[in-house]
């Protein structure tokens, strides 16, 4: 199943896209102590009963593109944070949308690896779905960058075209190199 922080992040953002969100915020913060990620959307949200069920294994709303959903994404994420002594929170309201926050303790041996953040971010901006605005803030301590889907589309055009993806990949890799330089 999901192995890295990036896998969990992709899964949660896919949930937001399938909840017909037109606006999704991702905040990916990293420092020596924690990796913390929040994903907030203005999708159709869940009432209290559905929210309780959403954390049950094998419960899924089975809509959208992923018609063969299994319903393990959220339960596995919650379990991973518990194994790690981290934090998992989910809030949802049918009038507002859904917000998921999860945090891993870097010093705990059960911290999942971050994964390939560049490939992950390319994926988040390229879902074949109705249009959605996505804002991703990524930071390591006091250095960071923001990627906004509409701004990227203005610069690069169609984000599914390979030329746009390759240009975006180079940019993200250069950002991550600068951030990794600061980690030493």
């Amino acid at each position, binding site marked *: 199943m999901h192995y890295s922080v990036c896998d969990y992040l992709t899964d949660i953002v896919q949930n937001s896209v399938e909840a017909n969100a037109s606006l999704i915020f991702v905040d990916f913060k990293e420092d020596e102590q924690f990796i913390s990620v929040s994903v907030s959307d203005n999708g159709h949200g869940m009432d209290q009963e559905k929210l309780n069920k959403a954390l049950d294994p094998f419960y899924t709303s089975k809509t959208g593109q992923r018609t063969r959903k299994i319903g393990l994404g959220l339960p596995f994420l919650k379990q991973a944070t518990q194994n790690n002594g981290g934090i998992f929170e989910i809030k949802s309201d049918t009038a507002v949308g859904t917000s998921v926050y999860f945090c891993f303790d870097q010093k705990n041996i059960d911290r999942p690896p971050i994964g390939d953040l560049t490939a992950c971010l390319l994926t988040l901006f*390229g879902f074949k779905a109705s249009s959605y605005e996505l804002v991703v803030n990524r930071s390591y301590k006091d250095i960071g960058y923001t990627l906004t889907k509409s701004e990227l589309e203005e610069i690069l055009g169609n984000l599914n075209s390979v030329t746009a993806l390759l240009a975006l990949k180079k940019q993200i890799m250069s950002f991550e190199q600068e951030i990794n330089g600061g980690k030493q």
Partner: protein
Amino acid sequence: MKKLTLDDLRKLREEQKNSMSKRESEGKEIEILIGMGTCGIAAGAKESFSALLDEIEKKGLTNVTVKQTGCMGFCDSEPTVEIHMPGMPDVIYGNVKSDVARKIVEKHIIQKTLLNNLIQDKPSTDILGKKGA
């Protein structure tokens, strides 16, 4: 906080535009769909996606779009890649690990030869109805 900016991206785009205007008139677009459901991610679809992009860049192809979709029902054959291109039948390939992704670019897209042993049958009817959103 030190905010990194997208200036390099803008410069790169300008450079691309200048060198690309000739190439874009070369033929219709090739569309690649890569399954990025939970099963796909678990099977390494992101690595296959990176390999695809990398090989497309190496071969200098520009009239290609790559989109992520959900599960097509071939969970036992993930990662799956679907290709629509003029001059070739629409095909879904299964078990597309990174090395296979590169072969697809070389054989299917450039040489216009099917990789017969990797073709999946069409998705089951419950998915076929909902597909193509």
